[in-house]
């Protein structure tokens, strides 16, 4: 439910959740707010005691009640907003109050039951929808300056999970609901004397991440979705050429890899240790996916530590050859270096590099020209600039082009298509790496697997894919998103995972019947990537997660999704087992994901639910009703005449037949 924040770095105003204009007569109305949120701007009324009114602008995610822009999410931990960073004459009212309240925990329970100051009988429990485990911290009457509709009087509530603003004006039923996890920056603007001129940055204090306090219960446990042994068994592993090794059981070989790895049968554990010394961060080549028929494989790793001097490592060379030899038909191993050629060369200066032709005779190397995390971050920031606060009008297309976002999407997809094509044609096995093998590599392997293996196009399959290629193989979610990190300017943040989801969305547009999940599924994943409500995307790697006992102490996002799968299902899904998807990665066929990036804009009237899907669901229901009636009628008529030749079919025969119609 919480709207996601976006991956944009940099301050960004708060977004209210547009509340559907339905009458609020439902008493303890839970906002049915599924409209995209908008940026916001909250103004506190004059409070003489504190010396003058001031405006507090909730920037960034606060804004982002779901807007995709989230900058440098300070979001660490859902928690109270506090501590002015910039030196200023006053510490804000809005920001400081919560802190004190929060600190004096004793007030909490009492204040929940207390009647609000304005005399309106609103318990918090009535005023704010809460998750189990969510507790209230403070509330205040404020004026919310809506960037689209002007000032609106309202009351803001802050809990340890969200900032919730409800309009007090009866005629405008506006609700703003922002998980604190998505707030990227809070800014206090102006004092009594210098209105709007000075703005003070406010930092966000570190409090426990809400995910650890979340006591939601679901009837499905999402943590059990991914079991590496089962997944490898599904792929037919281990087999004659590949074995499962526990060498990394205690994360000694590589602390950013999962405990369980699949490596060539002929490589001993000692070989692996020696190879690890030659690969950046010890991320050795290990199997990601094996083709069920031609047995070619996708292998992932990090860059070799070649350095300026052009070092070689016999063990690494031999190891790659062993990988190649797992399939006898292959004369050369294909290495895709995701980086642009120049970057790969430049990496030599810092001890990295790429596999040279001289050292690796039986391999051919291609560069895929995908840019690094910094370029992607800047690109997405530019996308933000053209859609917020106002959507670029007169030069929309050229502005869109100048963000290069779609071009990056295109390059990532093109790379993945090449990987998939190599493997599915059986031409060769593929080794993918970038620099550290946790960003671009994860994008390429997971997208290629999605193209090759229809299993990953189901809801559970996709969850497994994310869990495996991203979470377990150490995509640094914490650093890339900025969970649990105070340093906003951190250059480690980058929307790499978002970019992957965007690619998946592009594919789902081109193959509307190939995926079991719908757009909402993808948006939900992104929302909770930033919300901190679930433990799924916390921390950088499996070892850290294990240390923090994430699976015991938090709830998995997949619990939410799998316990309510119908909401996320694509009604058009038709299972095709062996179909390889090759999306068209040309500019003509790629488009900006408006429903995600611009969904908070009030000018977008999202048709919810999607009319095409809805119509189809209606038709499906109608069909079932018809079939049922038909059965009954047949039953009725045949019963009177016990002649076998005219007997109707039971449902078991009927349904499958009808389904095979298409």
């Amino acid at each position, binding site marked *: 439910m919480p709207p996601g924040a976006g991956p944009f770095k940099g301050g960004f105003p708060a977004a209210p959740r547009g509340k559907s204009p339905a009458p609020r007569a439902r008493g303890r109305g839970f906002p049915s707010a599924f409209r995209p949120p908008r940026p916001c701007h909250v103004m506190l009324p004059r409070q003489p005691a504190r010396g003058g009114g001031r405006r507090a602008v909730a920037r960034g995610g606060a804004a982002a009640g779901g807007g995709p822009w989230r900058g440098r999410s300070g979001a660490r931990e859902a928690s109270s907003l506090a501590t002015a960073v910039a030196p200023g004459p006053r510490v804000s009212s809005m920001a400081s109050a919560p802190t004190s309240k929060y600190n004096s925990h004793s007030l909490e329970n009492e204040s929940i039951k207390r009647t609000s100051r304005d005399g309106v009988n609103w318990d918090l429990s009535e005023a704010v929808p809460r998750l189990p485990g969510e507790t209230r911290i403070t509330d205040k009457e404020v004026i919310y300056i809506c960037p689209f509709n002007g000032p609106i009087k309202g009351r803001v509530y802050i809990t340890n999970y969200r900032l919730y603003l409800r309009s007090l004006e009866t005629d405008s039923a506006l609700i703003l609901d922002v998980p604190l996890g998505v707030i990227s920056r809070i800014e206090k603007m102006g004092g009594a004397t210098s209105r709007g001129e000075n703005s003070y940055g406010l930092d966000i204090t570190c409090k426990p991440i809400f995910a650890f306090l979340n006591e939601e219960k679901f009837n499905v446990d999402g943590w059990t979705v991914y079991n590496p042994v089962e997944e490898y068994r599904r792929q037919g592993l281990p087999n004659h050429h590949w074995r499962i090794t526990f060498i990394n059981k205690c994360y000694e070989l590589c602390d950013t890899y999962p405990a369980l790895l699949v490596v060539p049968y002929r490589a001993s554990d000692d070989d692996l240790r020696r190879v690890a010394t030659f690969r950046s961060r010890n991320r050795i080549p290990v199997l990601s996916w094996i083709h069920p028929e031609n047995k070619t494989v996708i292998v992932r790793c990090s860059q070799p530590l070649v350095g300026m001097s052009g070092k070689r490592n016999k063990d690494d060379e031999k190891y790659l050859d062993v990988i190649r030899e797992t399939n006898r038909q292959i004369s050369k191993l294909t290495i895709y270096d995701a980086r642009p050629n120049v970057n790969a060369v430049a990496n030599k200066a810092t001890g990295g590099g790429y596999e040279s032709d001289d050292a690796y005779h039986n391999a051919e190397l291609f560069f895929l020209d995908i840019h690094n995390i910094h370029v992607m971050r800047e690109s997405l920031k530019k996308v933000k600039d053209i859609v917020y606060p106002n959507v670029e009008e007169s030069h929309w297309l050229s502005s869109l082009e100048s963000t290069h976002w779609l071009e990056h999407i295109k390059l990532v997809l093109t790379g993945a298509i090449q990987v998939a094509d190599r493997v599915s044609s059986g031409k060769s096995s593929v080794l993918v790496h970038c620099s550290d093998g946790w960003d671009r590599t994860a994008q390429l392997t997971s997208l290629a697997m999605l193209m090759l293996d229809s299993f990953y196009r189901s809801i559970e399959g996709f969850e497994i894919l994310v869990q495996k290629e991203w979470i377990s193989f150490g995509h640094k979610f914490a650093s890339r998103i900025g969970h649990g990190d105070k340093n906003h300017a951190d250059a480690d943040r980058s929307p790499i995972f978002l970019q992957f989801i965007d690619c998946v969305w592009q594919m789902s547009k081109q193959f509307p019947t190939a995926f079991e999940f719908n757009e909402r599924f993808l948006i939900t994943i992104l929302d909770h990537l930033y919300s901190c409500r679930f433990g799924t995307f916390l921390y950088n790697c499996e070892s850290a997660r294990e240390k923090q006992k994430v699976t015991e102490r938090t709830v998995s996002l997949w619990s939410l999704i799998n316990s309510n799968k119908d909401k996320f299902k694509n009604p058009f899904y038709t299972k095709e087992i062996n179909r390889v998807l090759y999306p068209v990665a040309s500019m003509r066929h790629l488009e900006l994901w408006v429903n995600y990036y611009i969904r908070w804009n009030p000018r977008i009237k999202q048709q919810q639910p999607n009319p095409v899907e809805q119509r189809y669901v209606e038709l499906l229901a109608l069909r079932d*009703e*018809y079939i049922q009636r038909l059965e009954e009628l047949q039953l009725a*008529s045949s019963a009177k005449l016990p002649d076998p030749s005219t007997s109707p079919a039971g449902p078991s025969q009927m349904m499958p037949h009808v389904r095979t119609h298409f």
Partner: protein
Amino acid sequence: MEHIRTTKVEQVKLLDRFSTSNKSLTGTLYLTATHLLFIDSHQKETWILHHHIALVEKLALTTSGCPLVIQCKNFRIVHFIVPRERDCHDIYNSLLQLSKQAKYEDLYAFSYNPKQNDSERLQGWQLIDLAEEYKRMGVPNSNWQLSDANREYKICETYPRELYVPRIASKPIIVGSSKFRSKGRFPVLSYYHQNKEAAICRCSQPLSGFSARCLEDEHLLQAISKANPVNRYMYVMDTRPKLNAMANRAAGKGYENEDNYSNIRFQFVGIENIHVMRSSLQKLLEVNGTKGLSVSDFYSGLESSGWLRHIKAVMDAAIFLAKAIMVENASVLVHCSDGWDRTSQVCSLGSLLLDSYYRTIKGFMVLIEKDWISFGHKFSERCGHLDGDPKEVSPVFTQFLECVWHLTEQFPQAFEFNEAFLLQIHEHIHSCQFGNFLGNCQKEREELKLKEKTYSLWPFLLDDQKKYLNPLYSSKSPKFAVLEPNTVSFNFKFWRNMYHQFDRTLHPRQSMFNIIMNMNEQNEQLENDIKDLESKIKQRKSKQTDGILTKELLHSVHPESPTLKTSLCFKEQTLLPVNHALRTIEGSNPADNRYSEYAEEYSKSEPGVVSLEYGVARMTC
């Protein structure tokens, strides 16, 4: 046939410009009197109508042969490689001749014969009846009447014979006004909004120059505003950019002076002229692949062509018009220079926003027939049917179709027709296969005796209606009574299926629609089966009471049903219901879903006997 020297060339290669691997097909090229036909080695046929050819180019000779590039008006581009230069040259010359006819009588429509007799042909032409349409709108009424002033095309040659004008406008006023309007196109009714009692009227620019006035024209405008009992003010929309309108004053034309006309509000809306539109489309096509498909700067190229900006301008004008009527209840008079290009666009699009009838298949035909064909949009000149002035060619109607397409994208449930319908109409404005779009005005069409010599397109489209149905159409929804499109920049997209309609690599959207259509058909089939069965049962019941139960009757219940044909192999005969339980089932109303309740009840009392699938059977045991 005198232009055709070579009728058949073998070993011709057809390049696929959309495939990445530069694949080509080898086959034989045939030249007929009406078509260019390519049959490849898989016997797949590619037909290209001569009239569709916009441009033939012979490129420099290569090692594999002589390249021949044909650009079509339906945005198809075919690239042949003819092995011998001589053949190529012959075909090139023939196509040059064949694609540009000098006389109407040489056009395909005059030889096209769909094997219909004369009465069928006549019926086809009578399918769309504009008098009927005005009646539907609610005219004539107390304020509007049919004028016979133009019965013999005496006042205006490019207008239809039957025109609707305010009741209080006398003939001298009309005649006077027509003399003050360019080409005699005086203000007449285009659409009447029955609920609001407001009208959309259309005309051409006034011959006002810098200061000229015409009392009759002023009276006529006043009559129009008086015909609206609610709002005395009327809008006059000049669809041109202000600069163009001012420039026209120097030529003795111009626009209405607000001081001279009482109760008008004058408004420019800034749609560019036909020449700007033509070159914009040219640029669009260049960006999108006449010169190859290198697309690194696809989006900025698209933008610099200005095409989508022009589309937006037309849309904005139509929205302005619709708002004036819906919100202010005001009548609107629309004109441009001659009142047959931009005026047609804005009037027809405005009516489409206001009236859901025009969003049906039949209604859309009526709309085109009314605002485009009858009011004299110069189809033959704009589409270049004959070898004429290339400066008169302009994609004005294409723009209108594209605006409609954008609306269908924004309101997927509001239209009865789908994209294919728009594409098909676009195909035929250029094909010259039917008579509808030949000629430039009604008078010319009558002189050509089109109704006797050619066929109308509309009945053929209606016969194929199924292909053009939008499965998402919800006709009843009040949400779509009046459309209020959102013209935010990113809603304007490149119409891939129009400008790249021969790109066969992907058509995702349509495939979903096909699935829905199939499902729809299945459901209809099921519905019929149910009806069948129900009526049979009813029949039998009545017969039962008469004591006549015939086995034959029952036999006839199932065989037609497709879902049952293959499912007769019912294995569990023993589980079939027996008579005594029958009453329960018949008594339950299938709609209230009690069926499943019964199934549950029975499964509780008799566990484990049969699997769930046979719940139907179980509940009767």
